[in-house]
C-alpha cells in the first residue's frame, strides 16, 4: 500500500446548509469510535472532508470499517506531495504503478491555492503527459477511465487521490432522532432497522418474549440481530418484554381469528409506553403490505388505532425477495433463519382474520383487562445495552 491517507467525503450532508457542521461532527464521532482499534491513525476534520492519516495501519481493514458507516459517500486513498510539479509528477507515477490493474486514466487537477502558477487544465496536460511517458501500456480516457487521479493543490501541500471506494451513504446515525423498532426474530424487522439507521435514526429495539414457550436461544437470536443493527450505528438498547401472560389472556378471551390483531394492538400499546420512557418519537415495524394476515391495510388500520405515535414501516412496499436480499447483504439473514419459536409463532391461529375492523377489536378487548396486562408487561421490561462486539466476551478465558 503506497497510500498514506484516506479521505472521507460526505455526500448528502453537504446539502444541509447551516446544520451541516452538526452532521459532520456526528459523523466524525462515529468514525473516531469505529476506528478506535487502530491506534496509529490520526483523524482530522476539515470543512469538506475528514482526513485519516494511516501511519502504517492496514488500509484495507480501515476501509472495510469505514464502508459500514452511514453518512459517508465515498472514501478515497491519497498521498500528499509538495507543491511543485516534480513532486506531483513522481506522486502520480507512484500511484499509477500501485494501481497496476488500471489500463486507462485521466488527471483531474484543481487549484485551491490560486497563487500556484500552473492552472488546472495545464496541470492535467503536464501530469498526463508525464504519466503516459513513464508507464507502459496505459492510455488516457477522459470519459470512462479505470482510474481518475485527482490532484488538489492546497495552500501547503498537494493531495493526489487514487482509488475511490463507495461508502454506505445515508446520514450519520443519531442525526434524525430516535425510533423504537419492533424486532421479532424474523427476516424483515432487522432490515427495517438497518434502513432507519441509514437515514440517521437512532434505533432502539423492543422484543416480545413468551417464556417458557420461547427459549433462551430465541432471545440470543434477537440479541445477535441487535448486535448487527448496532454495528451500523452506535450503541443499541434492546427492551425485552415478558409477554406470556398477555398471550395466555388473549388465547382465553378472544375468538381465534382476532387473536393476532388483538395481540398486535397490545404490542403497540406496550411499545408506545416504552417509547415515551426512552424518548423515541416513532415506532417502526418490518411490515410489508399483504405479506401475512396482519399486514393488510385493514389490519394495519385496526392495529394503528391504539397509538398516537407515527408508525414507520420502511419495508411496506417491498417484496419478500428484495427484503431477503438486503438481509443477506447486511448479514442478518443467517441469524434470522435460525429455527426457534418466537412469540408470534406460538398460539398461531389456523385462520387469522385478514380484514379485521376496529369495532370488533375494541369489543373483544372488553373481555379481559387490557390496561393491567399492558402495565404489567411494561413494568417487567428488561433492558439490555448492546455494546460494540469486542467489549463483550463471556468465553474470553477459554479462548
Amino acid at each position, binding site marked *: 500500500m503506497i497510500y498514506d491517507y484516506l479521505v472521507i467525503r460526505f455526500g448528502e450532508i453537504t446539502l444541509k446548509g447551516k446544520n451541516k457542521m452538526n452532521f459532520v461532527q456526528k459523523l466524525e464521532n462515529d468514525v473516531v469510535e469505529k476506528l478506535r482499534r487502530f491506534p496509529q491513525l490520526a483523524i482530522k476534520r476539515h470543512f469538506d472532508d475528514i482526513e485519516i492519516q494511516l501511519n502504517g495501519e492496514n488500509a*484495507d*481493514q480501515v476501509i472495510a470499517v469505514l464502508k459500514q458507516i452511514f453518512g459517508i459517500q465515498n472514501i478515497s486513498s491519497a498521498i500528499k506531495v509538495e507543491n511543485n510539479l516534480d513532486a506531483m509528477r513522481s506522486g502520480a507515477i507512484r500511484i499509477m504503478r500501485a494501481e497496476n490493474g488500471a489500463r486507462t486514466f485521466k488527471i483531474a487537477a484543481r487549484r485551491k491555492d490560486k497563487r500556484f502558477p500552473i492552472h488546472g487544465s495545464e496541470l492535467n496536460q503536464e501530469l498526463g503527459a508525464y504519466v503516459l511517458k513513464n508507464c507502459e501500456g496505459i492510455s488516457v480516457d477522459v470519459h470512462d477511465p479505470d482510474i481518475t487521479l485527482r490532484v488538489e493543490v492546497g495552500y501547503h501541500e498537494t493531495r493526489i487521490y487514487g482509488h475511490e471506494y463507495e461508502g454506505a451513504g445515508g446520514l450519520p446515525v443519531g442525526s434524525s432522532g430516535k425510533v423504537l423498532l419492533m424486532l421479532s426474530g424474523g427476516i424483515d424487522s432487522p432490515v427495517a432497522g438497518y434502513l432507519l439507521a441509514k437515514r440517521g435514526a437512532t434505533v432502539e429495539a423492543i422484543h416480545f418474549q413468551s417464556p417458557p414457550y420461547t*427459549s*433462551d*436461544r430465541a432471545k*440470543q437470536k434477537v440479541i445477535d440481530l441487535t448486535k448487527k443493527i448496532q454495528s451500523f450505528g452506535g450503541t443499541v438498547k434492546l427492551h425485552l418484554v415478558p409477554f406470556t401472560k398477555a398471550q395466555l389472556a388473549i388465547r382465553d378471551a378472544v375468538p381465534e381469528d382476532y387473536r393476532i390483531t388483538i395481540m398486535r394492538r397490545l404490542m403497540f400499546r406496550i411499545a408506545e409506553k416504552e417509547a415515551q420512557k426512552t424518548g423515541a418519537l416513532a415506532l417502526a415495524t418490518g411490515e410489508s403490505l399483504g405479506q401475512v394476515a396482519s399486514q393488510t391495510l385493514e389490519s394495519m388500520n385496526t392495529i394503528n388505532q391504539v397509538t398516537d405515535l407515527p408508525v414507520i414501516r420502511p419495508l411496506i412496499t417491498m417484496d419478500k425477495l428484495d427484503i431477503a436480499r438486503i438481509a443477506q447483504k447486511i448479514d442478518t439473514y*443467517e441469524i434470522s433463519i435460525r429455527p*426457534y419459536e418466537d412469540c408470534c409463532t406460538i398460539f398461531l391461529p389456523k385462520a387469522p382474520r385478514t380484514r379485521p375492523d376496529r369495532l370488533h377489536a375494541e369489543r373483544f378487548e372488553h373481555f379481559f383487562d387490557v390496561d393491567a396486562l399492558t402495565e404489567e408487561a411494561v413494568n417487567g421490561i428488561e433492558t439490555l445495552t448492546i455494546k460494540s462486539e469486542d467489549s463483550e*466476551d*463471556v*468465553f474470553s478465558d*477459554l*479462548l
Partner: protein
Amino acid sequence: MIYLDNSATTKPYTEAMDTYRTVSEQFFANPSSIHALGGKSESLLSKSREQAARLLKVDAKEIVFTSGGTEGNNLAIKGAALAYRGRGCHLITTAVEHASSLNAFRQLEKMGFEVTYLPVDRECRISVEDFMKAYRKDTILVSIMHVNNEVGTIQPVKEIGEFLKTKPTTVFHVDHVQGFAKVPLQLNNSGIDLCTISGHKFHGPKGTGILYVRQGTVLAPLFSGGGQEDAMRSGTENLPGICGMVRALRMTAEHEEAGIRHLSDLQQQLRAGLSNIENAVIHTPLSGSAPHIVNVSFGGIKSEVLVHALEENEIYVSTKSACSSKDTGASGVLLAMGVPEGEARQAIRISTAFENTNEEIAASLSSLAENVKQLKMVMR
C-alpha cells in the same frame, strides 16, 4: 529432553489443554441440541469461529472446522474436484505434496481426472513458468503446499494466486499446514479459495484443524450427515478440540512476529554448527525457505541409526515426514529434488518451535557432531 520434531507435531500449550478439559466437562452438550445447554455450546462454537476468523483475517462464514490437515486436504481436493467436474477434469499439483494430498489426487486419477504433477528444482521449488505451461482452460483445481514439510522450501503460491485471481473457473487450494505461523500468508484477496491448517502443528490438540473456504466456493462433502459446518463437514462438532485449537491459534498469533525472528536465529545457529560437521549436506535451501526446518544428510550414516543415536541423549529429530516414515524407502521429496538415492536415505529433519532455545540447539549440535564421529567409525 530436547524436542526438535515440531514439523511432525508440537507439544500442546498448557492453556489449550486447560480449555480442552474445561469445555469437555462444562460444555458437553451437543451444539445442535435445542435446549439451553446446547445453546451454550453453540454460542461457544460460534465465538470460537469468530475468533479464528478474526485471527486469520477472514469471515466467520469461511471457517470450516475439520479433524486436521489430512481431512482438510482431502475435503479441499476431492470436494472441489467433484463439485466442479462439470467444468473440466484437469487438476494441477506438485510432485512433493504431503501424502494426504498426493493420495487424494491418485484417487481422483482413478476416477477419471487428469492430474499434472509439477516437478521441482534442486531447491524443491516448482517454477511459475512450468505452472503456466501446465495450466489449461479445463483446469478446475490447483493445489499447492505453501511450505514443504520435509525440507521447508516455500512455494510460489503468492504468484500463482495472483495469476489465478483472473481465472474464476479454477479453484486454488493451499496446504498451509507447515507454513502457518512460520511463513505469513494472506488469505483474503490473494486468489486463494481453500487453505488447510492443522491444530497440532501450532500447539493445539490433535484431531483439530481449519479449512478456509472462501465465500462462494462449493465443495462436495466427504461425509454425509446432519449438515454441520454449513453441510461441508457433517458430524457432531469436536467442541473441546475446536476451542483448544482456537486458543492455541490466538497464543501463536500473538507471538508470531517475535517467534519467527527467533526461529530464524535458531536456524542460523543450526546451519553454522552443521557446516562444521564433516560430510554434512544441507538440503534446505538457504533462501526462500521456512525458518523452522533444516533437512540434512551426513554422508555414510543411515538416517534411522542417527535418529536412534540422538534419542539416547534425549534429543528428538525425525527422518522424513512422520506421515510417510513407515515406508522405509528414500524420501520422495529429496528424490524429486534430484538428491541421489543414497543421500536421500541419510536425511534427517530438524524442526524447531518458538520455545526452543539457543542452548538446546548448541547441545544438539555437539551431540550430533559426537554421534556422527562415532558412527562413522563403526559404520566404516
